[in-house]
């Protein structure tokens, strides 16, 4: 029931028929209950990677094995809500099986109750993200994909939403994959961090964090961050030896 990924290469051909390597070596596995966080420079190809993992792009070299019949919940970088359906209908469309009680809990937790009948165009970005988050959790996913869910929100809002994501992730044993450019978010949310190189992206280093999310102290978070900044591409063997 694990997610096993081994993408050896993904290339794009642009209009002038030039080939661009986007991904070269992406190899990792995640188990249910684990939160894997990808951290890399902007535009390094992480969104392309997520599209492959979500099954939207089949044109690549390598292998991706998802758990069979895995239900996928995804929060896209832009919320991708249907502007012509209300907030509630947007969530219900993706999760027709979700019962009223469960939705009510989710809406209450994400503070969306007042906005149930609003249309997405009436919402701020922060609220629209919450709706996208509600939609992803409402399907009770086995595999949750979050593509920069905290980008372009102000710090206070991002921190609150991060706590909410942490709680939701804690409550359900699923494979979670998160992409972010913010090291702080990565260290606070992830069980295992994967540091990506610039384009073409490969995994430079894998950083497991043993302390449970809730028990992580500020000092420890700061230490992990400092260590990553100091040695972003430390070889796995070298780190194991030390």
């Amino acid at each position, binding site marked *: 029931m694990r997610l096993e990924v081994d993408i050896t290469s993904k290339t794009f051909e642009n209009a002038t028929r030039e080939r661009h390597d986007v991904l070269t070596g992406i190899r990792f596995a995640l188990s249910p209950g684990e939160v894997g966080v990808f951290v890399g420079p902007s535009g390094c190809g992480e969104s392309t990677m997520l*599209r492959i993992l*979500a*099954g*939207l792009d089949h044109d690549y070299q390598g292998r991706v094995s998802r758990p069979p019949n895995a*239900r*996928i*919940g*995804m929060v*896209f970088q*832009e919320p*991708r809500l*249907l*502007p*012509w*359906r209300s907030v509630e209908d947007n969530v219900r*469309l*993706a*999760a*027709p099986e979700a019962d009223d009680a469960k939705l009510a809990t989710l809406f209450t937790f994400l503070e969306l109750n007042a906005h149930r009948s609003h*249309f997405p*165009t*009436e919402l701020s970005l922060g609220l629209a993200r919450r709706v996208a988050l509600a*939609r992803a959790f409402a*399907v009770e996913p086995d595999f949750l*994909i979050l593509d920069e869910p905290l980008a372009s929100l102000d710090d206070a809002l991002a921190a609150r939403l991060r706590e909410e994501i942490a709680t939701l992730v804690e409550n359900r044993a699923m494979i979670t994959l998160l992409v972010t450019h913010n090291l702080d978010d990565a260290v606070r949310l992830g069980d295992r961090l994967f540091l990506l190189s610039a384009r073409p992206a490969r995994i430079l280093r894998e950083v497991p964090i043993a302390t449970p999310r809730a028990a992580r102290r500020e000092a420890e978070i700061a230490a992990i961050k400092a260590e990553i900044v100091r040695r972003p591409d430390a070889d796995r063997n070298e780190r194991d030896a030390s």
Partner: protein
Amino acid sequence: MLRLLSLAVLLGTWWIAALMAGSAKLPPPPAVLATVITEAESGALFLHLGVTLARVALAFVLAMSLGSAIGYLMGRVRLANRLGDPWLILLLNLPALVVIVLAYIWAGLTEAAAIAAIAINKLPTAVVTLREGTRALDPSLDEMATVFAIPRGRAFRHVVLPQLAPYIAAAARSGLSLVWKIVLVAELLGRPNGVGFEIGVAFQLFDIPLLLTYSLSFAAVVLVIETLLVQPFETRVSRWRLRAA
């Protein structure tokens, strides 16, 4: 209110023009109204209007459903577009009169020939509009539907159709006005009833009040259908746009 005023100005202009041109060429409004009343009392007016409306409805539904399906297919599938495009250009540029005359020659002066001819005239514009609409579909929403494994039928209804709705409304609007015009020609050339037929009779008799009676009643029906059916539909499908904060 402004619409009524504009209508009153039109009526006034007509009256003045009638006085200047003489009632033989352009009868004043009361003379036409009198003919409208006699035609309505005999029932002929409603019979002919009804027959014409039925033809419009049938041809319109036929052309819209077929045209939308073909347009969607051509917008989605490259091969369908490349195969269908020459046909489309041919149909778009074929004069309505040619289609009607050929239909009557090949299928006889029948109801089916008339309706088919009208539908064929309207079909290509519906195809073109819906093809554009399909090309403008947001791929990111398709991806969303795929990731969340929304079944095809549901995705079509909730994700695709609302995006196509403005295009369907536009095709319906332009298509209806096209059908209104063509149906009269088809009736004039080969049907024993309908507004077009009556206008043909009036033309042969130089009966201008009768001609105006049928043209204006027909125009009034068109106006009513436009304001009561087409415009509310357009408002409804785009109501989420209006509520944008």
